[in-house]
């Protein structure tokens, strides 16, 4: 047997070094010849000019970025505006009516208060809340995003932004996964499958959390309008509030690039994989089919994971508010314990506790904060462990300032912390599923948190020094 191999080695030595390349090239040349003889592209000319004209605009130094801005702003606006009514409906149905109805049922059946509290006020409420608030925006954002994808636009965005990511040591397609993260980070992490190299994929996964997912916009918008906009004359309030939100988003992109750069220079050092991107021809999107597949594929999958996470979290939220150690609830104890770190970060114990227990979904951070603030701050109209929504932003502002002692610093730092904190548990689960590595899942979870602590503490320190 081995004499055959020896013979092969001998013959190989007699051949030029690049024999392998030559063999392959021979194959490719043959393929090109056969194709040239079989394919007729004469009808392609007209179609091509339209595509090329569109490309010149969409990758133009000025208009390209304008188009990007308009399209993505459009998608976000459409998502927020479009989700408002369905979210309200679902909220009324599942949270207000559903909760009340379920409660009545449990009480009528004579269930003990603890059981009713745990299951209805805790598990059911959190789950219903997450569905009501998460489902409509996702059901709008994902199809819109997929339509852009089908149309063929997204590779153009990757093409436009490539230099930034290349400089940061990241893969060119990270721009796409980053954008997906603005809908939902779990989906953004799954999208990193388009990056083949494990090293670059990990960078994309770890930095995805700096894309502000749908669930975090309400918090940002609330802080922007109620606190930041409030310090300027009413005429400017709207613009300034929007500006604050956009500033955080832009900061997020900056952090994504900076952290990618740092990772690629330290723990995730290595070769840049061979770049390969193509700009496919534009295609009229198949709207109905896209709606169907993106709703099944992305929306339901993510929602299912979120619900699985929300149920136990709801139980925890209720327990924390109703289990007493000594003379105070667990919540009170934890808030006090977290107080010092909270102060250091320019936040407070209530916020930190909320981020701990509401880890399944960013959407329930504010309701948890409001509930904790009222029940621990002695405000009326709230029950321990029962999340609540005051329905009116101004009212929330009053509660937070009055019963919670919030200042502008608290709000600004909360905006920063919204950007820089650990991923929601749905995302953490997805990261583990995609990377199959406990180590990298831990890094992806704790790195943003560490950054958040450092940045908030620094900002708090600086602002306090300045008076």
């Amino acid at each position, binding site marked *: 047997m081995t004499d055959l191999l020896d013979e092969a080695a001998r*013959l190989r030595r007699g051949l030029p070094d690049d024999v392998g390349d030559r063999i392959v090239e021979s*194959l490719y040349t043959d393929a090109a010849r056969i194709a040239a003889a079989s394919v007729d592209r004469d009808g392609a000319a007209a179609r091509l000019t339209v595509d090329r004209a569109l490309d010149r605009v969409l990758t133009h130094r000025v208009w390209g970025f304008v188009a990007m801005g308009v399209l993505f702003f459009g998608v976000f606006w459409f998502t927020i505006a479009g989700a408002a009514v369905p979210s309200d409906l679902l909220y009324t149905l599942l949270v207000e009516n559903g909760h009340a109805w379920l409660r009545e049922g449990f009480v009528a059946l004579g269930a003990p208060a603890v059981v009713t509290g745990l299951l209805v006020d805790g598990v059911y409420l959190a789950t219903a809340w997450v569905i009501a608030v998460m489902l409509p925006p996702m059901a709008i954002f994902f199809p819109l995003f997929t339509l852009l994808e089908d149309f063929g636009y997204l590779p153009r965005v990757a093409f436009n932004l490539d230099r930034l990511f290349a400089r940061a040591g990241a893969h060119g397609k990270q721009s796409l996964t980053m954008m997906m993260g603005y809908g939902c980070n779990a989906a953004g992490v799954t999208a990193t499958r388009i990056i083949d190299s494990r090293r670059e994929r990990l960078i994309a996964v770890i930095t995805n959390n700096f894309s502000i997912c749908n669930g975090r916009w309400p918090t940002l918008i609330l802080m922007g309008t109620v606190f930041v906009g409030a310090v300027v004359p009413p005429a400017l309030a709207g613009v300034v509030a929007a500006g604050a939100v956009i500033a955080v988003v832009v900061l997020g992109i900056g952090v994504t690039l900076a952290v990618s750069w740092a990772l690629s220079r330290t723990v995730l050092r290595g070769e840049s994989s061979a770049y390969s991107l193509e700009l496919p021809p534009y295609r009229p999107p198949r709207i109905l089919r896209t709606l169907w597949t993106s709703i099944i594929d992305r929306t339901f999958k993510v929602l299912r994971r979120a619900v699985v996470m929300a149920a136990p979290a709801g139980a925890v939220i209720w327990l924390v508010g109703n289990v007493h150690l000594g003379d105070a609830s667990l919540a009170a104890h934890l808030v006090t314990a977290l107080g010092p770190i909270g102060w250091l970060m320019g936040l407070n114990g209530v916020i930190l506790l909320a981020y701990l227990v509401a880890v399944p979904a960013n959407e329930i951070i504010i309701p948890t904060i409001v509930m904790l603030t009222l029940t621990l701050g002695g405000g009326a109209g709230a029950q321990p462990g029962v999340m609540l929504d005051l329905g009116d932003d101004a009212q929330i502002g009053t509660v937070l300032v009055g019963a919670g002692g919030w200042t502008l610093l608290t709000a600004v730092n909360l905006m920063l912390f919204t950007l820089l904190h650990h991923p929601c548990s749905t995302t953490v689960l997805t990261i583990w599923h995609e990377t199959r590595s406990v180590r990298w899942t831990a890094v992806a979870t704790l790195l943003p948190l560490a950054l958040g602590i450092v940045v908030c503490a620094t900002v708090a320190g600086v602002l306090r020094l300045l008076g």
Partner: protein
Amino acid sequence: MATPLPTPGVGRASADPDPGGGCASCALAPDAARLARLGLDPGRYSYVVALAGNPNTGKSTVFNALTGLRQHVGNWAGKTVARAEGGFSYGGVGYRIIDLPGTYSLLSASADEDIARDVLLFGRPDVTLVVVDATRLERNLPLVLQIRQITGRVVVALNLVDEARRHGITVDVRHLTRELGVPVVATAARRGEGLPDLLAAIEQVATTDDPPPPMRLVHHDPELERAVAALAEQVAARFPTLPNTRWVALRLLEGDPGIEAAVRDGTLGDLAAPRVAAAEVQG
């Protein structure tokens, strides 16, 4: 394991749930062991179809069209890449179809290419169905040619012809068929176009006793030709029944680790064992 096979809603497909009469023990026996080693279970099917193609050619659409969305994700021995497998029945006969990873070539540049090559070479499917994109033919042909060098039991699905039409691109299917020496069927899988003809071609190739020989690539380099010819002679001497000695010789000259290993441990000889046509044993 009486899973009813889903039937495509086209062609002469029958709804017979138990086609080959439990063929796991018959014609595929010599290869069943090999297939099982690779993590595939031939089950109750008479023929195995390997589905290959470049990425983004609509391969999964073809897969779904043939299997009617009935797929379970199989795990490949030793690799964490999950591959889809499915089945369909046509003409009263069961076919198992395995969706190989989308690759640009079989030249072992990546784990995906290794998997695809291992299946095609050592799994020896009854039919290799290669999906190509009609709008990108020159890019997709290298893979087809490489596959054609390994086997003659090939059907080419010229997919996305609707896209090609839209772009004003026409492909001369007859010419392509002549050049490749195997059936080329124009399809638009997402619309169901061309599927009856595709199924007929698959059946024809699976059941034929006389498939076209593997394709021979002529090198314009005389030095290389001499070396290949010399080595191919030795390969033929060592493994007399091997149908594609030139291909093996080329790989050995390139220093292909997979082929070298097969020579060393003698499994290359298994490639030479003549295939028993399933039809022969069935009756």
